[in-house]
């Protein structure tokens, strides 16, 4: 298990025993462009610049702006990124996030942790 990290944006980072990095967004947040960029920057900082398989916990995320979605299409410090959400709202938001035609990092939405972990660990180090 990795340690928790916090800043003014109440983002939580942890690494589990499988080496998967978990990012948890605070409940009810409406993620905009600057927040998305901060999240990506802090992930890179947390990973020490090394790309890791990553799960983004979207439980309780209330919205995602267009600008934020564009940030997620760019380069980030993850080998793969699994968006994990349970509610219909999270599913809708996640699928908007996945709507771009090209991503620098492979990204998918999962409704269960098992499926997400399976996709992240089944892949090689880069895929």
């Amino acid at each position, binding site marked *: 298990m990795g340690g928790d990290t916090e800043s003014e944006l109440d983002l939580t980072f942890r690494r589990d025993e499988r080496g998967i990095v978990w990012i948890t967004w605070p409940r009810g947040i409406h993620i905009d462009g600057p927040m998305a960029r901060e999240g990506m920057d802090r992930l890179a900082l947390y990973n020490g610049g090394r790309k890791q398989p990553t799960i983004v916990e979207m439980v309780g995320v209330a919205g995602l702006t267009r600008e934020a979605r564009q940030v997620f299409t760019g380069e980030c410090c993850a080998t793969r990124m699994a968006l994990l959400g349970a509610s219909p709202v999270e599913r809708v938001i996640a699928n*908007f996030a996945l709507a771009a035609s090209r991503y620098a990092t492979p990204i998918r939405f999962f409704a269960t942790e098992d499926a997400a972990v399976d996709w992240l660990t089944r892949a090689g180090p880069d895929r």
Partner: protein
Amino acid sequence: VPDLTAESPDERLDQLVELVVELASGHLGARMPPSEAGDRIDAVTVGLNMLAEELQALSEDLEQRVVERTHQVEQAHRQLERLALYDPLTGLANRTLLADRINQAMTGVDRGAQPPAVLLLDLDGFKVVNDSFGHVVGDRLLVEVARRLQEVVRETDTVARLGGDEFAVVAAATTATRAIEIAGRVQDALKRPIQAGPHQCWVGTSIGIRMAEPGHTAETLLRDADTAMYVAKGQGRGGVRFFEPAMHATALVRVRVAEELRTAISSDQLEMHYQPIVELEGARTVGVEALVRWRHPVRGLLGPEHFIDVAEDTGLVVPLGGWVLDTAITQLARWRAGVLGRAGFAMHVNVSPLELRSPSFAEDVLGRLARARAAATDLVVEITETQLMGEDPQTARTLDTLRSAGVGVAIDDFGSGYSSIGYIRRLFVDTIKIDRSLVSDVDTDPQQHRVAAAILTLVEAFGLTAVAEGVETAAQAEHLRALGCRYGQGYLWGRPVPVEAMTGLLSAAVQEPAPRS
């Protein structure tokens, strides 16, 4: 799960309907906050919000792109308009825009406004600048001329370049007096030398003016102004003329003369006549003046006064001058090898000021002399006094080169124009030919006698040689001789005659030195 909902699902559905209605009516900024339930209704709400945001962004993008494209199209349009309506070299209006401005002014005339005046001008001597120094210098000259023209007109007037060295000014709502004023300012502006790259150029201009009258079109006004300009040019450089209907016939004649002259030069219609120049004391022939004649198939034998102006305006003066020089020099060599032997003799050839301003002219003359094996010292070039314009440095260089090689220089028709002592003093001439107007009454009019005496004293003082032109009577010859004039030319000794007749005259032995220093 449902307890978290602040409102009942039905209320949220009502709000969703309102959101859809608002979005549908075009308010793409409309949003609906989801509840904290995070249920399917919230999922639809969030999805709709995000779709609306997407739509809004796309719409704004599109609007932005439309603005950019519109701007680009406008720019392209302006650029096309510039290409279509303005002269790319000088930035002045072109013929199309000028015609448009004239027509606008004429529309105003229909409503009672004062009519415009159209001034048309071209540059005297531009072709020589272009031919001698190249197009780059010619273009710089045109740009500077354009700048000066714009300086002398009002903002409401339009200056246009019609092509080549032809410019036009449309002066809106103008009286004849004002049109003349503008013409005067244009001429003053172009009198100052123009620095075009390394070359200082002198160009004058002749101006034709057409005062518009109701019902005139741009085409008519430009054509008439052009006609008036040609008449102005025909009356000497730097002229200004208003259009008169009678000018049309004159203009047509000039066009025909130009066409026919082109043919004449290439088809042997030109012939050279020679008039003796004699020593007043003893009447011995010491030289001849070569005078070009045109044996016109219909109009008969024509003197240069019938075609020289047209030749200069059309550039035909270059092939014409070449023909004159070649014919005279070749004949000089023949006479020298035959009848003349070693006797002193000079072949006088008239040269156009346009030729003198060509940097290659001196070399060209010397080349022709060398090819014909004729001596430079047997040749005298004659320049008309009235045509020696200003202080053109190229003319001075040409004359200097010719004189260094031994060719003599004579000022023709001295006393007929702005007789300048400067020409005599400036050391680029050897011979002064005194105009016939000063000779005609020298034996009967005491005033003429005194003027002739004064000029001959000056000529003597500067160590030059004088030739009196147009001597018709023995009395005139005697008076001139008594005043110290050494040489004469005129009907008293012979009219210009064809080469065969002149060869016969020369056979009567020529022994004295030619009339030159």
